[in-house]
């Protein structure tokens, strides 16, 4: 718990300090004004309004106050409250990260278990080599190739966005519209997410297979099926679930790239738009949301672990 508070403090402090420590004029980074074009009076006015004339510790204090009251300020570009911009993006990001996490978890766990069970066989080694290769796949490029093939070449799926723009589809047509837009981003995220799960599952299971109680189970004549489901699976799954929960937090951050490629209107795309448009407050707020996501995922893992693995329960 204490560690999570430290992470929050570090993230918020980074956010506060970065624009203020950067070379050049912090005014442009914090207030978003074209400094060179202003008269000295206008500048002083803006400095006072944003609170840059206050001592650093007071600014820092106020910054925390804003965060606690959920006030992230306004976007430089659209002048809208940043909180609103973030809320409308979160569902889309949750949709594609959630789906892709399920896909890569199922595929990764199954293939990893199969690989470990048949370790040293041709199947295991080619799967292992394949996964190492997939790990080196640049996700944005994978997305571009998917679009070129499935949207442009074969015309099967829409190439951008989360819904068809300016269409008022209702009922199932609307649902299908959303699904067809999500297929490629989810596929790309799932593909790049699978090797991590696979590697964890495979190593975790190999470790379990080497344990004494597995040898005991075999020695007392338990069948393969019994050993696999009764002994190996149960002891392997706990660390894998932890890894999965932690990946959930990181998968959130990984969407910056995939959502950019597919112009998918989620939080990741918002970060890209903010970076491209030098909309620093939006970028900062999104960074805090990503941090919160990772922390929630870690917390979830901490809470889940003792439920799955009774050995780690402390009485």
């Amino acid at each position, binding site marked *: 718990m204490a560690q999570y508070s430290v992470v929050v403090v570090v993230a918020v402090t980074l956010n506060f300090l970065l624009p203020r420590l950067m070379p050049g004029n912090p005014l442009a980074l914090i207030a978003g004004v074209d400094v060179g074009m202003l008269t000295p009076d206008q500048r002083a006015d803006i400095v006072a309004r944003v609170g840059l004339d206050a001592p650093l510790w007071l600014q820092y204090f106020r910054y925390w106050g804003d965060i606690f009251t959920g006030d992230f300020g306004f976007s430089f570009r659209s002048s809208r409250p940043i909180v609103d911009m973030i809320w409308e993006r979160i569902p889309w990001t949750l949709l594609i990260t959630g789906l892709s996490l399920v896909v890569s978890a199922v595929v990764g766990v199954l293939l990893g278990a199969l690989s470990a069970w048949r370790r040293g066989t041709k199947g295991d080694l080619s799967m292992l080599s394949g996964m190492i290769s997939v790990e080196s796949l640049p996700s*944005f490029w994978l997305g571009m190739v998917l679009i070129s093939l499935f949207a442009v070449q074969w015309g099967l799926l829409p190439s951008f966005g989360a819904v068809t723009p300016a269409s008022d589809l209702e009922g199932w047509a609307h649902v299908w519209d959303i699904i067809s837009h999500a297929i490629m981003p989810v596929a790309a995220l799932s593909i790049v997410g699978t090797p991590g799960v696979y590697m964890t599952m495979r190593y975790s299971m190999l470790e379990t297979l080497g344990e004494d109680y597995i040898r005991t189970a075999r020695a007392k004549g338990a069948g393969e099926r019994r050993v696999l489901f009764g002994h190996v699976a149960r002891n392997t799954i706990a660390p894998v679930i932890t890894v999965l929960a932690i990946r959930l937090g990181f998968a959130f951050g990984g969407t910056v790239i995939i959502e950019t490629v597919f112009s998918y209107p989620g939080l990741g795309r918002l970060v890209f738009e903010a970076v491209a448009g030098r909309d620093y407050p939006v970028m900062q707020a999104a960074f805090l949301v990503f941090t919160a996501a990772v922390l929630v995922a870690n917390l979830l893992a901490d809470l889940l672990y003792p439920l799955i693995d009774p050995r780690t329960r402390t009485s």
Partner: protein
Amino acid sequence: MTASGSERRAARRMRRRSRLPTILGVAGLVIVGALVFTAVLAPWLAPYDPTDRIARPFLPPSAEHLLGTNDVGHDLLSEIIYGSRVSLLVGLVAATVALLIGTSVGVVAGYYPKRLGSTLMRGVDVILILPFLPLLIVLAAYLGRSLLNTILVIGLLIWAEPARIIRSQVLSLRSREYVLAARSMGAPDRWTILRHIVPRTALLATGSFVRAVSGAILLEAALSFLGLGDPIQKSWGSTLYWAQTRGAFLTPAWKWWVLPPGLLIMLASLGFALIAFSLEERINPRL
């Protein structure tokens, strides 16, 4: 009969298992060798200067321009050949930065495990929890676009994993007899660390370094693709950035403008990942 049969099969598996890291490692070395060769000899290998407008823009492949031209009439093949330099340079230097920080933190944290070590490792844990990609992007956006900044941002964010690995090695080394002997004879800490500890982490550090290169190559490509790379340098990521911006992946041009740079990013990262895998298996056979 069946027993000896299954024994023979098991023996065959063992042999195959021990061979795999070597095969993959050699494959990695070949890939990395080819990459270094291309990067060093780029001016001789590339048919044109990648910054010269030598033809009409958006040309399809032809005998003069094997991969066609981009949106401003640069020769794409030459651009991709020169791109190997950025990839390799950022990968190697960022990994060196990461290794220097990671090894220092790891050695100190492992050698003084009590207060100093546990404080350091808590810091490492915090860095590992922070959302990696968003932090990378935020830092790169504030620092501005240059090759040096790309290297720094990547290097400063990927040292935590090597630090953890080195620390656990140092923790076990510090209680070995020869280290205890040196210390009991009154050797100063600095001497013990430099003479007895650091050399024995070399193999592990090499593995971490190679893995960091593999990761840094992918990160450089991602940053350049998001438009956060050095605007002057031609890198594979920036080639794809322009392909994306100019919509090349929506036209037949994707076959010569999008496919080759992406495949090369993957190959470069894979080359180092394979070497890292074979090193790691050699140090700690898990297969």
